[in-house]
């Protein structure tokens, strides 16, 4: 096993946040991580959504956003980790097409867009985590 390939298909704040934390700690420890953000998983990465902190979530999300000691937001977390270790974040081309979006509609954490074949190629030697 040479790292993790994470599929993030949920817009739930807690899941997005958990993916950013696990991916970041792994990459910081020199374990390669590819994150493929697809389906509704893309929604929380829209620039407007991040600016308004308009996330879908439950009790933990509410508590995290109002806590005194806060975990970094997933966007900052991923950016920081990318500077330290082998972490790539890709946006699903198909989901973006359906929404009529391009990469400029999202915060600047994506390395590129990617399709299913591209993801599977990058995931070949990795353990896949589906969120």
């Amino acid at each position, binding site marked *: 096993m040479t790292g993790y390939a994470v599929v993030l298909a949920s817009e739930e704040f807690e899941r997005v946040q958990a993916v950013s*934390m696990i991916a970041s*700690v792994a990459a*910081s*420890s020199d374990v390669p991580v590819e994150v493929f953000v697809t389906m509704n998983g893309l929604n929380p990465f829209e620039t407007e959504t991040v600016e308004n902190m308009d996330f879908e979530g439950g009790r933990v999300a509410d508590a995290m956003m109002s806590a*005194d*000691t806060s*975990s970094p937001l997933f966007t900052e977390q991923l950016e920081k980790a990318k500077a*330290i270790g082998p972490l790539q974040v890709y946006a699903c081309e198909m989901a973006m097409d359906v929404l009529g979006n391009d990469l400029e509609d999202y915060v600047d954490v994506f390395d590129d867009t990617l399709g299913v074949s591209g993801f599977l190629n990058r995931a070949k030697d990795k353990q896949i985590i589906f969120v």
Partner: protein
Amino acid sequence: MSETDIQADETVDAIGSACPGPLMDLIGKIKDVDDGTVVELLTGDEGSKNDVPEWVEEADHELLDIIDDGEYYSIYVKKT
């Protein structure tokens, strides 16, 4: 107030940041310093006192001590 004889070469102040902030800050610092350097991590995050030792062991560094200062923990790690 607990005390230790350990002298840190570098201090990482992660008080006020929650999981995985303190660990990430420590990893960043450990990457920057030479072997043998003792890094002190200051954190108020309860999870860090269990999670940091797990990382230290996996990354083959040395956990020297964890001091409970009441308000926060001082975790001493030697890069090996």
